[in-house]
């Protein structure tokens, strides 16, 4: 019923935690920069654009990795609804990792803004200069950001539920604990853990 023998691959785990930190930072940067008139507005904005592009680049890498290596299966005893929620929320997370930076980039293009990453580095526009397109994308960027934040909260809650309540190895499969100990712990019900295991 459990997946103790299966962990996410090391690159997948590194990318997961790196992007978790970046995406959370990005959500807070975005929310903060539009809500202040202080100089935080300036430096948060300067951070927002290169960080967004970095997330987009890593999302591409992550999707390729995900397609190349199947993630560990979900525990067999999960209810169908839970299983559906798990899969749907993961694909939603992936979709938003791509959508938010792309919508942001297109939004700046439509607003006629130079898409500067700092130090004179500039991206080409990916949408026509059009105020109505800007308005739509600006709304969408914010709506998707709130959707992403809500999904991240759900994801966090679900991960902790797996780790603290179900204790089914799902959280483990994304953390740094070694596989040997997973196996040892799983087997401890039938045989004692030997020193040096």
């Amino acid at each position, binding site marked *: 019923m459990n997946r103790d023998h299966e962990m996410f691959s090391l690159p997948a785990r590194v990318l997961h935690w790196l992007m978790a930190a970046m995406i959370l930072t990005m959500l*807070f940067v975005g929310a*903060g920069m539009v*809500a202040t008139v*202080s100089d935080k507005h300036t430096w948060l904005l300067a951070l927002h654009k290169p960080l967004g592009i970095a997330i987009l680049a890593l999302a591409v890498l992550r999707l390729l990795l995900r397609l190349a290596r199947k993630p560990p299966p979900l525990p067999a005893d999960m209810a169908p609804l839970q299983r559906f929620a798990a899969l749907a929320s993961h694909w939603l997370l992936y979709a938003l990792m791509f959508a938010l930076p792309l919508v942001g980039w297109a939004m700046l293009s439509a607003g006629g803004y*130079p898409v*500067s990453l700092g*130090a004179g580095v500039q991206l080409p526009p990916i949408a026509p200069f059009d105020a109505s397109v800007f308005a739509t994308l600006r*709304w969408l960027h914010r709506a998707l950001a709130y959707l992403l934040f809500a999904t991240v909260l759900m994801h966090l809650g679900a991960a902790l539920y797996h780790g603290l*309540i179900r204790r089914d190895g799902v959280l483990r499969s994304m953390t740094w604990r070694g596989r040997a100990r997973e196996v040892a*712990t799983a087997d401890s019900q039938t045989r004692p853990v030997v020193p040096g295991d």
Partner: protein
Amino acid sequence: MPPPDPIDTARSASSPPPKPLGRWALIAFAVSALAAAFGYVAGPLDPNRLTPKQVVDTLQNNGGLHPGYRRNHAKGVCVIGRFDSNGQAAAYSKAALFAPGATPVVGRFALPGGNPYAPDGGVPIRSFALRFTQADGQQWRTGMNSMPVFPVATPQAFFEQLQAGAPDPATGKPDPAKQKAFFAAHPETAAFRAWAKDRKPSASYATEAYYGLNAFYFVDAGGARHAVRWRVMPDNGAAAAPLSAQDHDVLARELDQRLASGPLRWRLLVTLAAAGDPTDDATRVWPADRKEIDAGTVVIERAQSQDAGECRDINYDPLILPDGIAGSDDPLLPARSAAYADSYRRRTSEQARAGGRPPQETPR
């Protein structure tokens, strides 16, 4: 080997965890703490913070809601031209537009205030915004005003000034007592008031000088930063007799007449600060003996209506700068940037809802 961690230890899911209530509480706490932190950063849980929304709401309250129009400097006219650089500023800034040669410019002359139907003679201040677009796509945007100093130095004081200028429900005009109290409480406005005292509304956009007001840095090819302020000085003949308070729609027509007989010109002058000159206080001018660079000429060739012209959908955010120009520590700069962005968001969404044009209104 240490004992197995009780957290997420793989077991049958059917075996209940010890103290499940505490564990549920831990999950609820983690999720709500993250949500609360977000709420704080996003503003709602931080009631003391001055937000762009408050600034723009107040501008909107003072000028009236005019969907599709700028929340400040709502009445204006688009202009098209170029900047002819003579190369003299290139030693101080590596921005490509300061190399000798021409850079295309989309500009906008405007009046302060949020009413796009305000009388031209109602206020003595005019503004001039410029967007320079370099061949590499980088831009320099600047919004200048026809006074050499700004009334206040901080966003908070500007917000208070706006509140003091709110129309009195009884008269529809700002309450003079509130304005008097504001100025009394803000001695830093003295330089601006001295300038404004005998100032008459100009009969032409073309005969005004326009000041960048805030300090910036020019960054040269070696990476050295030079604190600067800039202004444009008109080279378009003497000023005519000023307007009276009731003169309507004079300035745009007068501009068209002038442009019919040839381009208009302003010299772009850049003042270099000496050590110790304030870069964070737009209420103070730098001493008159500071070194000045004549960087070239802004040439305006034609005008367009603001409802359909190229400047309509440009946000003249003063912090959109090319490599070679950087913002200073002036606290008004991020505040302008943040508030302009919110104003732009509002008017573009109103414009989108109205099918791509500013909604038509009947002038009051």
